[in-house]
C-alpha cells in the first residue's frame, strides 16, 4: 500500500480538473449513444421486424434475443453495485469503502441501461406507461413482466435514495470546494440539511442497505427476473428452480467485474493508487472467483439433470446447449478465468491489476454471451416443437449490436457527468483511510447480543 495520505483534494480532483482525455472519452461515448439512437429511430419507424425478432414460426428463429439477454445482463451488473455498497455498511467490509459509491453509481447506470432495453424491445413502446399503469390491477396478477417493472422501479428508487441520502453529508462538508456553477443542484441535494440529521440518516441508510441486500439478490435477480423464464414450463431450456441461484451468481460475477473495470479506470485517471489500492482489486478478484465457482456448479447441476436420464424435452434442450460452440466458448472463458484466480491465490506473484482487468472483461463477455444464448435457446428447443419444419437461426442484427454500444455509452456518460458533479469516493472513505472518522460504529445498528 502506498504511504500517501488520502485527502479531500484527492476525491475532488475529478470535479476540478478537465483533461483532453476526458473530452475524447465524452465525445466517443456521445457518438456511441447517438449511433444507437439513430438505429433505434429506424427500428421505431419500420418496426421490430428490422431486427428479425418478433417472428417465431414462419420466419423461424427466436423472438427474444440480444435485447432480452442484454437486459438481464445489465440488471446483473447493476446488482452487485448496491450489494457491495450495502455489504460495506452492514457487514463492516471497510476494505471496499473507497469503491462503494462507484458501485452505487454502477447500479444506477446498469438499471438505466436495463430499463432502456425494456423500452427498446417493445413493439409499441408508446404504450409502455398507459398499458402498465392503466391496467396494473389486472396485469400484476398474471404478468411476470409487470412484476419485473415493479421491482426494478423499487430497486432503482431505493438505490437512488441511498445515493441521495449519503451524498448529503459529503456535499455539505465539501461545498466550499465544489464548483459554483452547479449551486442549484447542490441546494436540491442538501435540501433541509442540518448536522443533527447525520446520525438519523446513517441509521436510515443502514436499514435501506438491509432492505436492498435482501430484496435485490434474493427477490429480484434471484426471483422476479429468473421467473420470467423459470415459470414457463413449455421451454425446457428455461424452466426449473435452478434459474434463481443461477441468475444470482451471474449477476454477482458481472457486477464485480464491472466495478473492477470502473475502479481501474478512475484509479488510473486520477492517480488514486492510495485510495483504490491493489488490496481492493485482490479482494474483488477473490470474490469474483467464488461467484464464478458457484456459477459453474449451477451449470453442472443443470447439465447433469438434463443429460443423465433427463426428461426427453430437457435432454434435447441441454444437449443442444452443451453442443453449441457459443456455449463452449463462453464456458471456456469463464472456467479459464477461474483457473487464473485460483492460481494467483496460490502464487500471489501472478496477480497484477492488468490481469484482474482482463479477467473482468472476460467474465463480462462470457456472462453476456451465456445470457444471450440462454434466451435464444428457450425458443429454439421448446417442448412442443410446433415449428420443427420451419427451423430458423438467430444472429443479432446490427441494430442489436449497436444497442450494446449505446447502453455502454449511456453508462459511461453517466459516470463522466456524475464525476464532474459529486465526489465518486465517499468522504467517509477518506476519513476512514486516514483513521480520523468521528462518525463511526454507533452510526450503524447496535449489535444484537445472543
Amino acid at each position, binding site marked *: 500500500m502506498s504511504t500517501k495520505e488520502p485527502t479531500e483534494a484527492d476525491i475532488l480532483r475529478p470535479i476540478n480538473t478537465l483533461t483532453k482525455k476526458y473530452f475524447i472519452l465524452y465525445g466517443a461515448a456521445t457518438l456511441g449513444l447517438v449511433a444507437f439512437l439513430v438505429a433505434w429511430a429506424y427500428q421505431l419507424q419500420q418496426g421490430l421486424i428490422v431486427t428479425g425478432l418478433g417472428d417465431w414460426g414462419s420466419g423461424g428463429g427466436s423472438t427474444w434475443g440480444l435485447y432480452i439477454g442484454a437486459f438481464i445482463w445489465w440488471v446483473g451488473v447493476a446488482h452487485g453495485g448496491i450489494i457491495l455498497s450495502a455489504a460495506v455498511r452492514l457487514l463492516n467490509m471497510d476494505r471496499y469503502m473507497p469503491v462503494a459509491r462507484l458501485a452505487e453509481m454502477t447500479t444506477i447506470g446498469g438499471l438505466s441501461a436495463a430499463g432502456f432495453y425494456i423500452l427498446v424491445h417493445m413493439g409499441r413502446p*408508446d404504450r409502455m406507461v398507459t398499458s402498465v399503469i392503466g391496467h396494473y390491477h389486472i396485469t400484476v396478477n398474471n404478468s411476470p413482466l409487470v412484476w419485473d417493472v415493479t421491482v426494478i422501479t423499487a430497486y432503482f*428508487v431505493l438505490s*437512488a435514495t441511498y445515493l441521495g441520502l449519503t451524498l448529503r453529508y459529503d456535499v455539505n462538508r465539501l461545498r466550499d470546494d465544489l464548483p459554483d456553477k452547479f449551486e442549484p443542484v447542490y441546494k436540491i441535494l442538501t435540501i433541509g440539511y442540518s448536522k443533527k440529521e447525520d446520525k438519523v440518516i446513517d*441509521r436510515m441508510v443502514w436499514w435501506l442497505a438491509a432492505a436492498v441486500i435482501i*430484496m435485490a439478490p434474493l427477490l429480484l435477480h434471484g426471483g422476479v427476473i429468473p421467473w420470467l423464464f423459470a415459470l414457463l414450463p413449455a421451454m425446457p431450456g428455461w424452466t426449473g428452480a435452478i434459474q434463481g441461484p443461477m441468475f444470482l451468481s451471474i449477476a454477482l460475477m458481472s457486477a464485480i467485474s464491472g466495478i473492477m473495470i470502473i475502479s481501474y479506470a478512475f484509479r488510473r485517471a486520477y492517480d488514486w493508487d492510495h485510495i483504490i489500492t491493489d488490496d481492493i482489486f485482490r479482494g474483488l478478484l477473490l470474490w469474483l472467483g467464488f461467484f464464478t465457482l458457484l456459477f459453474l456448479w449451477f451449470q453442472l447441476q443443470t447439465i447433469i439433470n438434463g443429460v443423465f436420464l433427463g426428461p426427453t424435452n430437457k435432454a434435447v434442450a441441454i444437449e443442444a446447449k452443451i453442443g453449441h460452440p457459443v456455449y463452449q466458448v463462453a464456458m471456456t472463458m469463464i472456467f479459464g478465468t477461474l483457473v487464473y484466480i485460483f492460481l494467483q491465490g496460490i502464487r500471489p506473484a501472478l496477480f497484477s491489476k492488468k490481469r484482474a482487468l482482463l479477467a473482468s472483461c472476460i467474465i463480462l463477455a462470457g456472462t453476456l454471451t451465456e445470457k444471450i444464448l440462454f434466451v435464444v435457446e428457450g425458443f429454439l428447443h421448446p417442448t412442443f416443437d410446433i415449428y420443427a419444419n420451419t427451423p430458423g437461426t438467430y444472429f443479432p442484427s446490427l441494430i442489436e449490436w449497436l444497442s450494446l454500444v449505446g447502453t455502454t455509452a449511456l453508462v459511461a456518460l453517466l459516470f463522466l457527468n456524475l464525476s464532474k458533479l459529486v465526489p465518486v469516493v465517499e468522504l467517509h472513505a477518506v476519513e476512514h483511510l486516514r483513521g480520523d472518522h468521528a462518525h463511526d460504529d454507533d452510526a450503524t445498528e447496535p449489535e444484537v447480543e445472543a
Partner: protein
Amino acid sequence: MNAALTAIPSELLYHGYDGTAGFTGFANEGTWIIFAVILVPVYIMLAAWFLGEPRDTKTGLLGVSYLVGLTTSMWVGMFVLTVLIGIVFYGGPPEPISGVGPP
C-alpha cells in the same frame, strides 16, 4: 321456466371452477407475490425509519419524499417520453389519450 332457472343462485348448481382463477381479478397471486412477499423488506425499512432510535420524523419524511419523488419522476419522465414516441412514430399519443385502436 327460464326465469325460474335464473332465479336459482349460481352458487347452488354451478360447479364453481373458473378457468382463470388465480390469474385475474384483484387481489390475486401476482398481487400477493409482489406486495406481500417481494416488497416486505421495504415495509420493514420504512417501519424502522419511523420506529427505531435515534429517530426524527422530519428526516424520516425526507427519506419518504426521496422515495415518492424519485418514483414519480421516473414514471412521469417515462410517460412524457412515450407520448413523444407515440406522436413522432405512431401518429399520435398512446391510448387512452388518443383513440383506442391502430392509428
